[in-house]
């Protein structure tokens, strides 16, 4: 079941020399085709953060247009391109690949392996992404611009492209998404294999950190569900460029089949994005409340449970798409089931914090803020599963507000928490705590201002994807827009902190948070092969209360 490569590195015992080499080579490694999972992880994270900034700028342009009811900042085709590209970039080039990068960095360290199962495949999966992302962005420079039909790209509207142009925005959108999908599937094969076969001796499934459970569940979903999207996109490409009629109503095709194929992946995609975030909470909340994760086994099983249920809920995106009554009721019921394992997680987080000894460092602030806002997003999610209510708010800003509470206020908050938490491990340096706290408050408050405001707008009937709106909706729109500009500005202290600390921050100790988990037992940053010796695991995870973690040793603290 478990496997290690100890025989391969027995000669490599000059630790300090290794460390020196690594330091001097670092920045060049990150621009090279490297098979070290840690280098690939950092490559993923840095590259996706650049796409996050681009996607964020597009969002600020969208919000700027919506400051006033009239269409007066960008013309309508450009506006439609902006929200299409914003959604596509944030999902496929920020959250999903960032999670892949973080998982890449952490999973081998957390399970006590020297690398991923297939290091070469790992590097290839990463290197597909930069060209695919640049290809997508290049469509801004086409004479007729980017894809303009939203990130769903529903036919027939997505097939309305200027006649006679083979290379158009929609074509490029499909090709780059198929490439990104291939990269994700290759990554998923790698993750699942690694977690099943590369665990250190004694690292049983129920000794794995919940983060590893969540990566396993998310990557299994990629394997099961992503092929449906790839198939749908390829058929769409045939309709677009080669005159087939799969989804064209006037050619006897069925546009609704596309919606099924699309959501069969794109609903589980929410969990592919969210499960790693839940995993991050499950690592950080115990470390800063000094309690074992409450109900570890049930949380681990709930992770897999969420993944399993999420395969059977996709039609709740299609309650108004001429979906028959029986299907509406069936998928209402299955969608509500998601609340049970999710509830188990939320209760377990809360119980972990209860009667704890809280340390409110930046990672904990982001994790607690994210967990609290997730409960809000979860509550509105259950509301949306209720068909009669969904029919009213479907395609309105209520839905936009709901999923931004998930993708930004939960997942992106979790990502920031993870960056601060593992920053000392990854870089070997500490970040500046004061700047981190400033970043938290500059994110937490504007995020609520921006995305809460969307809920009343949706209840009042403001539809998503409109480039102009009735003046009655202006009040909340102005609040949302101002909040979004603050949110954009909040990334500046973050970037300053990360860049400055990476270059000049004080040296980090191996385990600055006195946290459990194998990644904290190795040096910061870890050796090329992660561990001098493959650890043998004898204890359950989240062993807080064990004197090993709770008693401060001088050497560990005063460095």
């Amino acid at each position, binding site marked *: 079941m478990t496997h290690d490569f100890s025989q391969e590195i027995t000669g490599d015992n000059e630790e300090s020399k290794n460390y020196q080499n690594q330091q001097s080579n670092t920045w060049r490694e990150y621009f090279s085709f490297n098979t070290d999972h840690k280098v690939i992880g950092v490559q993923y994270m840095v590259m996706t953060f650049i796409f996050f900034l681009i996607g964020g700028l597009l969002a600020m342009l969208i919000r700027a247009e919506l400051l006033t009811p009239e*269409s*007066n900042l960008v*013309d309508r085709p*450009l506006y*439609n*391109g902006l929200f299409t590209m914003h959604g596509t970039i944030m999902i496929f080039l920020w959250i999903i690949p960032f999670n892949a990068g973080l998982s890449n960095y952490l999973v081998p360290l957390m399970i006590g392996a020297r690398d991923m199962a297939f290091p070469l495949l790992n590097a290839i999966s990463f290197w597909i992404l930069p060209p695919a992302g640049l290809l997508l962005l290049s469509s801004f420079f086409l004479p007729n*611009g980017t894809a*303009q*039909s*939203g990130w769903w790209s*529903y036919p027939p*509207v997505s097939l*309305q492209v200027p006649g006679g142009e083979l290379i158009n925005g929609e074509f490029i959108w499909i090709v780059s998404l198929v490439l990104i999908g291939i990269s994700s599937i290759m990554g998923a094969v790698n993750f699942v294999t690694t977690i099943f076969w590369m665990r250190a001796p004694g690292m049983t499934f129920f000794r794995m950190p919940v983060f590893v459970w969540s990566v396993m569940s998310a990557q299994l979903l990629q394997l099961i569900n992503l092929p449906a999207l790839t198939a749908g996109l390829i058929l769409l490409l045939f309709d677009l460029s080669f005159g087939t009629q799969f989804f064209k109503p*006037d050619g*006897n095709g069925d*546009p609704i089949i596309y919606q099924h194929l699309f959501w069969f992946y794109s609903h589980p995609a929410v969990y592919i994005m969210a499960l790693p975030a839940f995993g991050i909470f499950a690592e950080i909340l115990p470390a800063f*409340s*000094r*309690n*074992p994760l*409450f*109900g570890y086994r*049930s949380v681990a099983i709930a992770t897999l449970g969420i993944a399993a249920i999420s395969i059977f809920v996709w039609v709740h995106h299609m309650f*108004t798409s*001429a979906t028959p009554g029986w299907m509406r*009721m069936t998928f*209402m019921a299955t969608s509500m089931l998601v*609340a049970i394992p*999710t509830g*188990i997680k939320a*209760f377990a987080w*809360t119980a972990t914090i*209860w*009667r*704890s*000894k*809280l340390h409110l460092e930046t990672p904990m602030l982001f994790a*607690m803020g994210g967990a*609290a806002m997730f*409960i*809000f997003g979860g*509550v509105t999610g*259950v509301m949306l599963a209720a068909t009669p*209510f969904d*029919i009213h708010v*479907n*395609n309105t800003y209520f839905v936009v507000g709901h999923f931004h509470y998930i993708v930004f206020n939960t997942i992106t908050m979790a990502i920031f928490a993870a960056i601060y938490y593992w920053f000392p491990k990854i870089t070997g340096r500490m970040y500046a705590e004061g700047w981190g706290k400033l970043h938290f408050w500059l994110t937490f408050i504007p995020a609520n201002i921006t995305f809460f405001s969307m809920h009343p707008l949706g209840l*009042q*009937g403001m*539809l998503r*994807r*409109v*480039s102009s709106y*009735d003046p009655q909706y202006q009040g909340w729109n102005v609040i949302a827009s101002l909040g979004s500009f603050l949110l954009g500005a909040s990334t500046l202290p973050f970037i300053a902190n990360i860049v400055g600390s990476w270059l000049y921050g004080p040296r980090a100790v191996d385990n600055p948070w*006195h946290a459990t988990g194998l990644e904290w037992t190795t040096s910061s940053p870890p050796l090329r092969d992660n561990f001098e010796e493959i650890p043998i695991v004898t204890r*359950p995870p989240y062993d*807080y209360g064990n004197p090993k973690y*709770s*008693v*401060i040793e001088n050497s560990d603290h005063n460095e």
Partner: protein
Amino acid sequence: MFSVFEYVLMAFYVAVLLVISRWIGQQAFSWMPLQATAEAQRVDDLFSFLVSIGAFILLGLVGVMVYAIAFHRAPPEDYTEGHPSRGDARLEILWTATPTLLVVWIAFQSFNIYQQLNILGLNQIVHLHTPLESAPAYAATISDLPKPASETIDVFVKQWDWSFRYPNNVTSNQLHLPLNRSTRLHLQAQDVIHGFYVPEFRLKQDIIPGRKIDIVLTPIRAGKYRLKDSQFSGTYFALMETDVYVESLDKYDQWLTQTATSEQTPVNQAVAENIQPPKTLFNSGWYTVTPAQPGIANKRKLTDDT
């Protein structure tokens, strides 16, 4: 695990939460638009119920977190553990059972209300319209029809124009509906998927080219509302709105006869904007489908005799 005092404290906390969340649930009615159909009242009841439950859970859990932040802070150098408990089977069963019961309750309520909507006639009936459909199928579709309605209005949508054909063959760009009577809308899309949505009706239905979809609705409140396209339909999607008038049967009939005799000059915002685009700071000049001149919808009624 807990002392008696703590149990009393928790019971008090839960009681306060119940009162507050019930109050928030009552407020939820005022967050919604006017109720112009009987269905709207049912939907708002459901929303209020969902808000109450949601507020209880949100305030309950966030309250515990805030309490911990206020009272369970550790001194900076204290890395000892908070509580040694790794779990509690009874507690875990309790918090698995609680959401299970809650969602079963919510699903049951939603199902009930959905059934009421069905009786009221909100349900849509879909006819797959394919050339392969043979004659006998035609007879079968009739039995599918929802609750009988006193009027049937044909709704034609295309980029970016609404057009309504009334029983006396009057065609207009305004939707007029008689008060307190059920009217069937026969929805047909020409080019891409559109959506029929009037927020005050709490009713939304995608209109899919190649399918004929019927909905029946019964407005109970006179007034002027806005009908919007609810499914993204391309460049001028935001402009695809029109007026809906709910009026007494007398006034409705009066309007019908008046419109039948008078010449209409339909105004289409998408066409107007396509001819004279508004000034915007950035002009991409990217491709758009050109909206057809108004009047084409009127011609369609001659060819489409469903």
